[in-house]
């Protein structure tokens, strides 16, 4: 309750958490993937989750928009508060939640439809546009925000799967933006991209920070250091260390963090 109050009071923008996870444990059947993880996600900041493979970063990320609900046998314990309300509350509709908390996946996964339809799909199912013009508007601004409009303006009707990998990923970001979420979850969005495409996507993510809260899982220390303001280091299903990115990368308190960011294990 005390934390809740803190969330509600208009504190310094720096400290305001839009999501706070409290003692979140996740089980796949009998196997525990996360153990009592607590994390505050500051609003309009980029938070990166790092850690060795299999430590539960994706699992944590998928808790935040309840994508874990679709996994057979997955059980989530603890509380995740979004603007102070528990998203695992029985009254919460996960469909609406996912509209507020968008997601971009590791592998670009555009629908095998036209570029236009890819972006228009979210607004269509949520009834965000009342006529064709409004829809066009949403699609174009989303593509613009995702930095893709220039490249695809004259082929909005060709299929989204025909784009290059980096373009596809930016299309997926545009698709997520079109639903007008508050938060965007990104699970290794650049792992399938070459350095140039990665740079473009990173640039885009930094721009998006102004209007969105972004949580990004990454295996690249440099990426985390470059773009994020807050970093959480996961290890074996627990958060070992969390703090300002700069502080965590320059003077980590835990020696496991130290080991990981200097490449001694992972």
């Amino acid at each position, binding site marked *: 309750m005390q934390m809740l109050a803190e969330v509600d009071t208009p504190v310094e923008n720096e400290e305001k958490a839009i999501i706070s996870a409290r003692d979140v444990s996740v089980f796949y059947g009998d196997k525990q993937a996360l153990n009592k993880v607590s994390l505050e996600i500051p609003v309009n900041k980029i938070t990166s989750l790092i850690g060795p493979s299999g430590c539960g970063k994706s699992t944590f990320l998928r808790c935040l928009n309840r994508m874990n609900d*679709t996994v057979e046998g997955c059980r989530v314990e603890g509380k995740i508060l979004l603007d102070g309300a528990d998203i695992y509350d029985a009254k919460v509709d996960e*469909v609406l939640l996912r509209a507020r908390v*968008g997601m971009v*996946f590791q592998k670009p996964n555009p629908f095998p439809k036209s570029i236009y339809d890819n972006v228009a*799909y979210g607004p269509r199912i949520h009834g965000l546009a009342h006529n064709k013009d409004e829809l066009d508007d949403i699609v174009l601004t989303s593509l613009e925000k995702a930095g893709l409009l220039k490249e695809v303006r004259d082929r909005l009707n060709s299929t989204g799967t025909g784009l290059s990998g980096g373009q596809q990923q930016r299309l997926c970001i545009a698709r*997520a933006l079109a*639903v007008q979420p508050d938060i965007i979850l990104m699970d290794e969005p650049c792992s399938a991209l070459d350095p140039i495409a990665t740079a473009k996507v990173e640039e885009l993510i930094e721009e998006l920070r102004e209007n969105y809260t972004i949580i990004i899982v990454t295996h690249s220390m440099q990426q985390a250091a470059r773009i994020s303001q807050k970093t959480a280091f996961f290890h074996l299903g627990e958060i070992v260390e969390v703090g300002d990115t700069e502080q965590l990368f320059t003077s980590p308190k835990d020696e496991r963090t130290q080991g990981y960011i200097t490449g001694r294990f992972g």
Partner: protein
Amino acid sequence: MTDMAPTSSSAKSWDSDETRANLKRRHRSEKRFRVLGLTAIFIALTLLAILIISIAGKGATAFIQTTISLDVTFAEQKIDPKGTRDQEVLRGASYGSLVREALRAEFPEVKSRKDLRVLFNLVSNGSPNKLRKMVMENPELIGQTVRVQFAASDDIDMFTKGYIPRDVPEDDRRVKDKEIAWYDQLAEKGMVETRFNSDFFTSGDSREPEIAGIWGAIVGSFYTLFITFMISFPVGVMSAIYLEEFAPKNKFTDIVEVNINNLAAVPSIVFGLLGLALFLNVAHLPRSAPVVGGLTLALMTLPTIIIAARASIRAIPDSIRDAALGLGASRQQMVFHHVLPLSMPGIMTGTIIGLSQALGETAPLLMIGMVAFIVDIPGGVTDPATVLPVQIFLWADSPERAFVEKTSGAIIVLLGFLVFMNAVAVMLRKKFERRW
């Protein structure tokens, strides 16, 4: 093999006698396998060729018909003595006598009753019906003399096509010397002709092979398949969607899954018995009707469609599902906006294959009485009907020589439909093939 010797010795071993022998053995075995594969394909193709050649050889003549043209006098006295032109009167008139008169006029020298009977048998028994139809359609004909092309009787037809040779002793021949003489006379006058047998495609079954056609069976098959499709497609696809996308994975769904697979292996005649018990004895639906046949075949097709649909739904990558759900689509929206449209080509392919199985199915239909002799073209799903494979079965069972070619002809038509359906399935698959 197991020794991890220094690199120098292992490099040397690539050139040893042992390696070379090994290599040779491997190449030999590869070659042997290739020869075996080619042989297998060759055998399969040969058998297929034999099948097609023999059926086509026997059945090709079914598409040709021998006709005899006669000058028929539509005497008013015989058809409509009172001149009323009433439909009932026209229908009831004795058209047989018109045909007989025409033949008698052609061969005035034939006098004895026995010979006359043989003479009248030159043309099909269906000839009076043909005249009736002509007059009913066009009463103007009454009072005129018109040359009409009649189907020859089945024996004459067989004779024309060479199935009854001239040079065997008369006693072993169904067409006697006298008939041959008359036939030759007619032929000399140019009154015997062979032409494309359009009757075969436009008329229903008949006891007279020369006028029996498959249209009734084609229409029956169409209605039956229509019912089969209407039942098994929605039910099958919905079951597949539910099982793949919504059902929890537990003991119960495991049992359902195993049973669906078992159902696909149940002999079709068992479905016939089920249909008999369910649709005829309990629901009292009409016997011999496409609706019952369709329902029965739907039971049989259902597992095929469910299995095919599940396979193609499962082939849709999860990333598409994640993408839709991640945007806030509900499960149902995800399925109907993305998964189902994407898996539709696969589902259609499976459905077409299931339906073509149903099209060729005979046994279960025998159980529900679709084996009756039906002359009329069915006008709806509740009219008595027969279907193509049952028609083939019925004709194959008939003693007349002329039904042999009809049987093969019908098989050709059935195979044509099957090839067509499978071609559509292949085309669908090719057209919508997708790389992720």
